């Protein structure tokens, strides 16, 4: 049996159960944004998937079986979540 007791972690920053607060990706995943008064349009024709090569969605949001064997628990930059608020 595993000598290390299972310890539940929870991040008080983002409510994720994958990491503790001191290892929250939000510590480094911060963008310096341009003026938010400019209206943004979503260029759907520029969205491609790193996982299947398909069009119209980002790799994190792909329905296909994951191609890379490295896990992606907390999500990456290439996710619909990483769009400006009004475009999500």
């Amino acid at each position, binding site marked *: 049996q595993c000598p290390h007791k299972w310890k539940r972690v929870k991040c008080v920053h983002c409510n994720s159960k994958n990491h503790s607060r001191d290892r929250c990706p939000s510590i480094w995943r911060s963008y310096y944004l341009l003026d938010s008064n400019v209206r*943004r349009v979503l260029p759907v024709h520029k969205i*491609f998937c790193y996982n299947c090569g398909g*069009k119209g969605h980002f790799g994190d949001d792909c329905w296909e079986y994951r191609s890379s064997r490295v896990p992606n628990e907390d999500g990456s*930059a290439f996710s619909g979540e990483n769009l400006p608020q009004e*475009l999500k």
Partner: protein
Amino acid sequence: TLNTDYPWILNHDHSKQREIADWLTLEIKDFVAYISPSQEEIRVRNSTISKIRNAVKDLWPDADLHVFGSFATDLYLPGSDIDCVINSSSGDKENRNCLYSLASFLKRRKLATQVEVISKARVPIIKFVEPISQIHIDISFERVNGLEAARVIRGWLKETPGLRELVLIVKQFLAARRLNMVHTGGLGGFSIICLVYAFLQLHPRVISSDIDSMENLGILLIDFFELYGKNFGYDHVAISVTDSGARYLSKELYGSLQNPRTSFALAIQDPGDKDNNISRGSFNIRDIKKAFAGAFDLLTNRCFELDAATFKDRVGKSILGNVIKYRGKQR
């Protein structure tokens, strides 16, 4: 105590930055400024090339010498060689006799030492060292694709902020790990540029005009290592780059880009030939992917560590120094 492993941070302390990503952005700018060629180096390189060009014109009045590769795009690291091509109106300079007569002509004029003539390769070249500047020079003959590629890259550099900075960092990162030489399966300069260009062209925050890349180099570098180190589907996805931008292709639909020996291979479609994979020589993609993933882990761990540290402990620290060692002098 001064740290000689990352000299670019001397007198450039950013430890008081509130956001750790901003600190990294500023450090990337310092590093790029530190390894960018000095005015003196540019002058020496230009005068070396014009001496050789003049000699070529003396020998062959119908020929001219052009530079391509990293020299033509200003993306060269210290000590990198200069790629040149000789094109002529008669188009006959690629035969063995011409290669040897140029080689001995340059030797006689004291413009070349350590001359090697490689006439039997797919791309015949002369390699030599110019004795005064000690610069290594490769000359190939009668081809235009290198010049065309340099023109395309200069266009990308002009319209893609951050491309130059990220390419120089990734180049130095791979060079330090000897993963940048194509003959040992590493990533060549053009492939590196394509990877960074496609990354920027497809990044959610960039395509939605939400950020200025130059003010976000830190997080973009982390995102780059994350994409190609952890997430990119090398087995199924090919990268396509053109004058107008970048896109992904499904390898299943472009079978000619697929490596016949393994599905786990980087595929970058040649803009000039849709069936040609520019990066087919980079067979060591497994180690390259691992190195990128390692860089992601090192960078993000360093961010966590420094974010938790007191301001006193942060002074004089480097984030990038965990990933890039560069002991060379400022250029």
